[in-house]
């Protein structure tokens, strides 16, 4: 099976090299593995740093946001015939060992989408305000898309070939995290969750979703839901 590990990166020169280097080189059941960095119009050395590693680098010449970068990754993966796609954050908040439990259900054909959830086990050091924000987004996701998830904002997710073909992303920015659930619901994809841990540093906290952003996202999501635009 062919596995693509997709890393959307915007101004991640500090962490990107370490993230790429620590990715496992081999997974059981995977014959070919490719790491794809989508450089989303970074103005620092993200692109150059990525090119020093054995990865594929797709570069946007304008910053389009997380949703835009993920959409480009999905399109690349569709055009290059992969069986499994894993999205992995570039800010170093994921444990590389958590990739395996996320792709395992896909290899075993038990699910189309696996969401790595930071809330299934209680280990981890997510700050309380971040926990509250994510919980709020979970409720909004449920209210709008009728899919319950314990971690609607997770960056570590795996997709089967079927899901890769079906999912089309419209959001450009952070609301893409919730848009996935809209796709899961409307395209009738089978989703399960797998426990992952997160590493919170002041660096990754600054990079992630701020609670105030949630309000803007809420408006966007409601508009998507009501008007389909």
């Amino acid at each position: 099976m062919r596995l693509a590990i997709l890393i959307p990166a915007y101004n991640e020169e500090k962490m990107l090299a370490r993230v790429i280097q620590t990715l496992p080189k081999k997974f059981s059941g995977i014959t070919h593995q490719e790491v794809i960095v989508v450089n989303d119009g970074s103005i620092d050395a993200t692109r150059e740093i990525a090119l020093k590693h054995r990865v594929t680098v797709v570069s946007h010449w304008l910053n389009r946001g997380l949703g835009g970068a993920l959409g480009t990754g999905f399109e690349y993966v569709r055009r290059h015939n992969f069986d499994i796609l894993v999205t992995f954050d570039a800010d170093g908040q994921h444990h590389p060992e958590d990739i395996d439990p996320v792709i395992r259900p896909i290899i075993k054909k038990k699910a189309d989408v696996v969401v790595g959830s930071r809330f299934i086990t209680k280990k981890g050091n997510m700050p309380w305000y971040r926990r509250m924000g994510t919980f709020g987004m979970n409720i909004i996701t449920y209210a709008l898309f009728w899919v319950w998830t314990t971690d609607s904002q997770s960056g570590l997710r795996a997709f089967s070939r079927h899901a890769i073909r079906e999912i089309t992303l419209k959001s450009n920015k952070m609301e893409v995290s919730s848009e996935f659930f809209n796709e899961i619901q409307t395209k009738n994809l089978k989703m399960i969750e797998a426990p992952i841990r997160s590493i919170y540093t002041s660096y990754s906290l600054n990079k992630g979703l701020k609670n105030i952003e949630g309000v803007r996202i809420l408006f966007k999501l409601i508009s998507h839901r009501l008007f389909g635009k």
Partner: protein
Amino acid sequence: MHDYLINLWQSIWPLSPIKILFSVFALFAWSRAVLRFRAKQMNQKELAFWSFLWLAMIVVVLIPEKTTTLAELLGMERGFDAMTFIAIIALFYSVYRLYIKSNEVDQEITRIVRETALRLDVKKGQAKRSKRKTK
């Protein structure tokens, strides 16, 4: 004294200042449309639309009685009510259209950036080879 001054002003100049201000503004806005048309940044249809809109506003401001006919058609008593009602609906609708339009433009830009990236900017990185020990 106060009433006398107001009466005097109204007999010399029958238009209230707000009407004058608004008419001047509407003429200014209309002139912008004409300039844009001359610069060929606007087509005839658009010019006709904006001319109608701004000139109609001047008519409404100068002869407000005219709007009463419209109000009666809509089942309202005063012309002013009808104007406010129509204006609010029109504003809401145009904000909604603009919002949709800007979202669409945003998505178009992403599509262009994506297609350019996938066609022209896919590079394979090469890991530095560790220096091979010879002999």
